[in-house]
Structure formats: C-alpha cells, structure tokens
C-alpha cells in the first residue's frame, strides 16, 4: 500500500517534469503536417505545405539535398577517420611498449576532459592559414581531432578487455604483432567500434558550431547550419516549416535512437561531453 502511494507520487512528479519534453516532441510530429489557427494549439487541417523545402529551395538557400549530402559526407568521413585513427592508437597505447606510454595515456585523459570548444578561434585561424577554411575536409579534420581523445580512450578500454591469452597464442604461432592485431584482436572489439561509430555519427550529424564557424558557405553547408540560418531569418518566420526541416534533419538520429537505445545508454554514461 505504502509503495503504491510512493510510486504514484513518483509518477506524478516525473510526469510533470517530463511534460515540456513530451509536449515539444508531440508538436514536432504534429505541426509538420497540419496547420493551427492563431491562438489555438489544436490542429485544424492536414497539409504538406511545410514540406515544400524538399522540392523547391527557398530563395538564397542551397538545395536541401546538397546540404543533406554534405552532412552525410561530414558525419560519415569524420566517423570513418575517427574509427581508423583511434582503433590503431588505442591498441598501441593499450598493448604495445610504446616509449612514453604513460605520458601519452595521461595526455589522452587530460585532453578528454579538456573543453575543446575553447580552441575554435585558433582552429578557425589555422584553417584559414592552411587554406582549408570553407572546405568540408577542414571541418572533418577538426571534428575528428576534437573527438579523438575520447575515441582513443574508449578503444583502449575495449582493448583492455581482450584476453592476453589470445595475443600470446598468436605470437607463439609466429605471427607478428601487427597480424595478431588485425586478425585476432580487431574482431574481438567489434562492439567497441560499433559503439564509437554510433556515437560519432550522432555527434557529427548534430554538430553545429564547427561547420558554422569553419565552413559556412552555401555549397559546403550542412543541415544544422541550414536549419539555424532558416530560423535566424526573420522574414519568413514559420514554426511549421522549421519543424518540418528539423524533423527531416533529425530523422536519422531518431532511427538510431530507436534501434540502439541500450547501447546509447552505455555510451552517454561513459563520460562524453555535455
């Protein structure tokens, strides 16, 4: 009896605090396909008007499909690069007798806790100096660099769980350490690559500040910058359109969320930013 009352209190408390979240998410779905009269929240008519951006670009804006393509390139390449670089570096730090190993590991941890967004001004100037400003390659490099300490640390953690016996057996059979890594160890850490990959795709897809600062030009624009520019433009202020673009933009994120919820719980509890 007492525990029922307690659960009721808890449910009411959580329900109330979660209300804004639920209201916002429902409106995100509803408002993109309906219209509402001013002063009311109840939809009165079904329409696809808000989705016009899919077939005709608003004046002065790039096509949504080019922007989507850029976003795929940005999130995809930074993920692949991050996976490649941190899976090799993670192994070297976890299992090989690298000189200054402790120093490198400490460096990775310090950089992992370090708030990287403070470096944006210097990165902006560096990319201008080396000619990668307004270039998708420049943002990809910057994104990878800033996520790298986290990536290396996560991969090192997964390598640490691989039994030494597997490697020792490989070395005993005459394989080089490189072969052992590629043929025996790498298959063991697939879950780690998966987790880091999911994290990196979400993080790249959501990233706003880096592309906004480092590659704002129309032809290299990504969806986050596109949507932010749309919202900042006062002349066509229409939440139905904003939400439609927003829903289109976040669709891949929702899909990942539906399929990998449990994995995400572990990833986002693991000390990532924010």
């Amino acid at each position, binding site marked *: 009896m007492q525990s029922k009352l307690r659960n009721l209190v808890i*449910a009411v*408390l*959580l329900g109330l605090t979660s209300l804004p*979240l*639920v*209201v*916002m998410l429902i409106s*995100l779905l509803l408002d993109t396909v309906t219209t509402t009269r001013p*002063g*009311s929240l109840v939809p009165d008519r079904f329409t696809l008007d808000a989705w016009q951006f899919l077939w005709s670009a608003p004046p002065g804006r790039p096509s949504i499909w080019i922007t989507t393509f850029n976003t795929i390139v940005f999130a995809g390449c930074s993920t692949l690069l991050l996976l490649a670089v*941190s899976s090799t570096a993670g192994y*070297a730090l976890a*299992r*090989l*007798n*690298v*000189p200054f*190993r*402790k120093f490198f*590991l400490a460096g990775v*941890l*310090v*950089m992992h*806790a*370090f*708030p*990287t*967004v*403070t470096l*944006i*001004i*210097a990165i*902006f*100037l*560096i990319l201008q100096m080396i000619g990668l400003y307004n270039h998708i390659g420049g943002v990809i*490099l910057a994104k990878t*660099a*800033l996520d*790298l*300490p986290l990536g290396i640390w996560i991969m090192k953690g997964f390598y640490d769980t691989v039994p030494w016996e597997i490697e*020792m057996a490989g*070395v005993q059979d005459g394989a*080089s*350490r490189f072969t052992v890594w590629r043929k025996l160890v790498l298959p063991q850490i697939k879950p780690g690559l998966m987790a880091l990959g999911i994290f990196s795709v979400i993080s790249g897809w959501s990233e*706003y500040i880096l592309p906004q600062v480092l590659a704002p030009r129309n032809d290299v624009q990504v969806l*986050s910058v596109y*949507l932010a520019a749309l*919202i900042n433009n006062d002349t066509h202020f229409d*939440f139905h359109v904003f939400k439609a673009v*927003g829903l289109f*933009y*976040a669709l891949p*994120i929702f899909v990942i*969320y539906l399929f990998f*919820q449990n994995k*995400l719980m572990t990833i*986002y509890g693991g*000390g990532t*930013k*924010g």
Partner: protein
Amino acid sequence: MSASARLGLVMLAPSLVIVALLFLAPVILTGVFSFTTMTTGTGISASGAYQIDDVAAGTLRSQGVPAEILDRLSAELFAIDDTTLAAARQAGAAEALVSELATGHHGESFPTRLAFERFLKSLSARPATTRDLKAASAPFRRSIVNTRYESRETFLAALDSLDLRLDPATTAKIEDTAYTGWRWTTANYTRMLSSAESFYRPLRTVLYVGATVALFNVGFALVLAITTFFLPSRTAAAMRALWLLPRILPPVLHVLLWKWLAWDNGFLSTVLAPFGVASRNWLLDNSVNAWIFVILINGFVGASMGMIIFSSAVRAIPVTLFYASATDGASTLQQVRHVILPQLRWPILFVTCYQTLSLLASFEYILLSTNGRPGTSTEVWALAAYHTALSNYTGNLEYGLGAALAIVLVVIGLIASTAYLRLFNFATLVPPPRIEQ
C-alpha cells in the same frame, strides 16, 4: 627499440599528427594570437601594408604629433619643383608642357588634384585629352595620403620625399600608425581587465555553470536515478529513454522546440492566454526569464549523463542493504538519505567535476537560444569570446581580443583536467603491457 615499440609508434603516428595540428597547435596559438592585434582589418598574414588615412591622422593627433606635420601628411598637395619636374620628364610627359611649367611656374603648389588639373588646362601647352591630363598631373603629386605602400622601404621613401625633416621619434610614430598589418601587443589583456563587462561575465558564467550543474546535471539527475530505481523496471526504462532524448537531439532542433514553447504565439503564450496573461516572447522579454530558459535548455540536455551514471551506481548497491534497512523500519526517504546517497559520493563528485568543466566552455545552446540577449545579460564568458572573435554585428572580428578571452578558459581547462587526472586515480587505469616483444 623493440619491434612492438616501432609498431606502436607507427600505429600512433596518425593520431599524433592530427592531435598536434588541431589540438596542441590551437592551444599554443590561442596564447600567441592573444598577444596580437589581429582583426579582420589587419588580416592574419604576417606582412601588412602602410597607409596614412583619416583614421591614422586622428591617432597621430592624439599621440601629440604637431599639427603642421599632420596637415602636410594628410594634404593632397601638387607642387612644381625640380624633383617633380624630373619625375614628369621620366614619366614621359610632353616636353613643351614640362618646360612651360619649369620656366613660368616653378615653385607653385596646389592643394587638390582638381585645382592642379584646372591650372594645367589653362596652360598653352595643355594636355589634349582627359587621359593625358591625368597622366601629366600624376608625377607632380607630393603627397602620401590614402596611398597604399606594400613595403616599409617604399613607405619611408615616400615619407622622406615630403621634406618634413622629421625627428626619429616622430617617424617611428608615423610608421607605427600607418602600418595596417597586425603586431604584437599586450593591450588585449588590459582591455579585457578594464572593460566593465569583465566584471559581469564571470558572474554570469558562475551562475550558468553553478545553477545548471546543481539543479539539473546533478540535482535532477539524482531525482531521475533514484525515483526510477523504485519504479517497475519497464516504466523506469521508458522514463530513462525519454530523458536520454534531449542529449541525442541535435542542439539546433532542441533549441528550436524550446523557442516554439516560449515564442509570443507559441505554446506558453497560447496556454496562458485564457488566464489573462498577455502573450509575449518568454525567452527574451526580460533577463530573469531568459536565464530560466538558458538553464532549462542546458539542464534538460545535461541531466542524462548523471542519470545514467547514478542509476548504475544505485543498482550496484547490494539489495540486502535495502532489505535490512526496511526491516529496521526505515522509510523510503530514509533509505535514500542513509543508504543510497552515501554510496553515490564518488559518482556525484565525478559528474560535478566533469560537467562543470564542459559547461564552463560550452556556449552552443545559449548561442542558439538567447544569443546573449536581452542586452548582454546572458552572455557568458565563452560566448563573449565567440562573439568577439568569430561573429558580431559590426563585422570587425577581433581575433586577438577573442583569443585573450579564450586563453582564460583554455588555462582553466588545462589546470582542471590535469587536476582531475590526479583526483580520479590515473595509475590504476594504466597497467603495463604483458608481452615484451
């Protein structure tokens, strides 16, 4: 060096290059840039040009350069003397014109190009076309105002040709002021310290970080973790999944939804209208509301990390402790206070440290929602650095000053993250390799 060390270095190399170029170099360069006058105006390349214009003349006046020198520096003067006549001959001016000027008008001068060209047209050997007129007048110009000199030597030679007989100190002042490139300075730091905003920005930053961490990242995260612990597991999982969403949602979309909630024809205004509350933009109508939304927006995102970490810490507490305390008659609240919270000391410390540091430097959600408004009442330190160096209404981006603002955060970040390394026991995390080969 052993084979494994060599392989290790090869495998590390790509990450070392990337980290050096886009992590270590930015840390150092933020410090270097903070001692320069770099702006959009000076550009970022190492060589600048020299030019005297109205702004430079004003600066020189305030530095106490005598008025007669300034008048000469900023005068558009056309003079007929031996030097200019020789220059005109060399430039290929008609001999008839040059000799007429040399014999009849030697020593005359004219304050503007217009006056000189009008005079030229009155001569008997006047140039036939407008183009010839322009070509003929150019060599007689004895002025450096509004002319861009690409190197120091050409500028000094031009300055010398004015026959001002400047002393070295004044020459140095003029040269310094005329330089359009960036140079070394400590002025960014004095400006940063003396500005009135530098008093409020740290306070705002403390309010932003403190309130968000205390209320949401730790406070509400604890509420979520402990309440869901007592709920049936499926409800609890759904609740946690719901609260993970804001963390996954792209920031631009997350803030868009909050803007809709707060807009003058959005959710809050519409819901409150029947109660006689005037519709308004709740996000920006006054600074208190702006702050509430800034903390809510950041807090909803930040609660998830604490929630997940605290949840697993609570679940790790042996169930027997709960049974034992329940047998002793402890209420749920007493269990929370005396069983759960003591076990969460380290997770709470970890989340507090971690989130304090990342919030300190983060400005993404504020940038997207209030952008520092109303006025500058929600402009925290990191956002001020961003506005100064990367985005403002005037369009003159002050890279140097922005870097000085950023270096404060960089230094705090470096000190804090190194301190965390000691606090959370680094040595246990790095056991040495077990194959020597």
